[in-house]
């Protein structure tokens, strides 16, 4: 086991990582951040999407050792007491059904909006194309991201 230091939702975390410790297990089991979901453990479903230095990754495919000195944002870190406009848009657009894909979708969409505040529909679909949702048919999720983009632009930086 090797010492690793990283930022999780802005807080400094020191821990020990083995050569097989995955980020998803560390978040869920060690830190109790169960907002990051597990659906397949092979990078197919996107439920465990988190931002690593601002870019979306599947936490099931990232070794904890790879996160040394880096910053991880999970769904729990998106809102600081009041909902983020993206989260509000998900609720308003009806983009939430069973809710199990929702955290991963929110993180993938947040990663997109950070890179490109004005994405077109195709870019949104592309950015979410690694995230599986069985309930919604994706339509309302795409609309939620469009709505959030409009509002974030209106509200300014």
């Amino acid at each position: 086991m090797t010492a690793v230091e990283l930022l999780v939702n802005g807080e400094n975390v020191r821990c020990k990582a083995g050569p097989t410790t995955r980020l998803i297990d560390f978040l869920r089991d060690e830190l109790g951040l169960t907002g990051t979901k597990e659906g397949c453990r092979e990078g197919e479903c996107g439920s465990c999407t988190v931002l690593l230095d601002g870019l979306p990754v599947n936490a099931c495919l990232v070794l904890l050792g790879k996160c040394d000195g880096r910053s991880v944002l999970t769904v729990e870190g998106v809102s600081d007491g009041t909902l983020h406009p993206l989260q509000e848009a998900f609720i308003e657009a009806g983009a939430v059904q069973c809710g199990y894909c929702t955290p991963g979708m929110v993180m993938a969409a947040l990663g997109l909006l950070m890179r490109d505040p004005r994405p077109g529909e195709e870019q949104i679909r592309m950015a979410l194309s690694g995230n599986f949702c069985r309930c919604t048919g994706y339509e309302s999720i795409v609309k939620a991201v469009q709505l959030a983009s409009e509002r974030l632009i209106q509200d300014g930086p």
Partner: protein
Amino acid sequence: MHVGVRIDAEGKVTGHTVFPTDRSMPGMLYAAIRWADYPHARIVSIDTTAARALEGVEAVLTHADVPGLNRCGRVIPDQPVLCEDRVRFVGDAVACVAARTREIASLACRLIRVEYEELPVVDDPEAAACPGSFRVHEPENLVVHRLLTKGDVAAGRRRADVVVSGVYRTPRQMPGFLETEGGIAYYDTDGVLTVCCGSQAGHANRFQVARALGIPEDRIRLITSPLGGGFGGKDDVTEEIRLALLCQATGKPVKLVRSRAESIRAGIKRHPMTIYMDTGATRQGELVFQDVRIVADTGAYLSLGRSILYLAMEHCTGPYRVPHLKVEGLCVYTNNLLSGACRGFGVNQACFAVESQMDEIAERLGMDPLELRLKNALRPGDEGPLGQSVAGSVGMVACIERLRESPVYTKRHTWNAASTGRVGRGVGVACAFKCVGFGLGLHELGRAIIRILPGGRFAVYVPYEDMGQGSQMAYSIMAAEALGCAQQDVEVTVGDTGLCPDGGPTSASRGTYLGGGAIIDAASSLSRMLSDLGGAGRSCGEKARALGERAVGLTAYGSYSPPKPERGFDGVVGIPHSVFSFMAQAVQVEVDTLTGAVRVPLSHAVVEVGRVISKQGLVGQVEGGTVFGLGMALGEDVVTDKGVPKSYSLSGYTVPYSMDVPRTTVEWIDEASDVGPFGAKGVGELASVPVTAAVVNGIADACGVRVRTLPARPERICKLLLDKG
């Protein structure tokens, strides 16, 4: 009706909602399962010595450690909880382990030595149904065999000017919920064995746990909601019993979650069906008879296979007047993966067959496919497909008429004409109906409890789990309407046998219907109770406010018993049904005739589901259902070879993602039905039904090949195109 707020959404977008598989407790053990090593084998011996000796292992259980009945299964308890002398499919469990870590638990499973004698693998349901087949179960593999008739099929055949015949094969679709099966079991402070495991049937599965553990049901509590998707696959028991057994054996909290591979291995799939269908019509396009044979592969155990077969038989006519009907149904045991409830419950398979034939009849007669459907559509006052009386609204005609005006349909010729070179473009249509609730002969009673809380608020307890369909939202809207209060003043609890009354499973598209009916009944009792106490006002809300503290704690019980047909068939339980929802759908399809790839850019759906309780909920169900049925049409199939899946991974299973789905427009005929709460029926399953056939009909329109074996994967389309020349 109120606009409605999705009360469960905030916890889900922030990640704070705790799903059963998210839970953990101090001192918790991790469980693992030793699955069958063969799809069919006799167990010669099981040796757990090495596993028990492993440091950190706290329990190793085999069949000898099951105190009660070592069987599960909702209808017939035919599946061992832990196999004794034989394994019948790769998802059978031979032993289970609880240990201090996940790694120790799975290592211990590998250390269990199981000696087998392999048996012949029975994987072809039609061969399995023959008397000479090797038997998966005694006395025969043919577990259900029924013949239902209406009218005189021979006379119908004589009247027919055209008869179309076809054999249709449907895939082993998986429900595909994102949260796999599992959860945590523990003893609460009162010594009640609590199993927190996502499920659609808390009370029914509590009974199965009690039966296996040999303890009274009131010593067991199942917390089943929220769950990360169900779609039928969490209707029958999943891991509740093994969780409870391991907790009972160790006295400690135990966590058990199926990996995706385990879910593919052991979880419920949609019944693959082979449907032989002849449908006849007169020259004028009037349907005159249907002659059908359905063979359903239920896998190693029955689960809900009997009712699923019956629903396929009842819905094989489509939502049309068919005077003469003969339908034979066979449900067969094999060593294939376990089949059971999956969104649509047999209706999807039947719809694919009949709606394919409607298009073929239209082509033979030179009729417009929607006109043919309109001509034969069920109308109010018509008898149902099995000759039963139909209650409530019958909106098939309105759906078709509305669909006829949709852009996807009116611009179909323009879309056809836009075909270029290797790309063929077509439009496909299909109609569907789906029963709401249980059929004749099955106990069905919706239940709800309403309790008055301080501050003019109401607690509402309904059994029906929220698996994403939004039952809590629907209940809060209906309770607010029935009580005369704001939606925010209603606190809804679902999916907890410790708090909610037993109203049967969350299945059969009946959650809104039964739960809502029971809420209205409870509210009317509560209103009388409040008046008796001297509360003045027009609604429970006003009366409770008038009484203040005196009303707090007052509790009313409500129930709802939906209508059933008066008569059915001797010895057949669960059909016919009395209430149906209706839908018509059109899709644009594009086929690349070089690669066989199919794209579905646009879809238009019109539904008639009675009064709409939540528009957002309805649209979400139809958009999501469309994609569910699209997956069945184009890609989803757990392919097996001699009972063994060729892939245990999501990467080997083609589900639609955001780039693969159509833009769906949803319309509804907002007409109150004269049955159901506020005139509402149900939509959850129906939404997945017609699109599969619509896509297949669109493929035929686009490139002239008719797909009769699903899914319509590129290689299949290419083969058909090659055969056509």
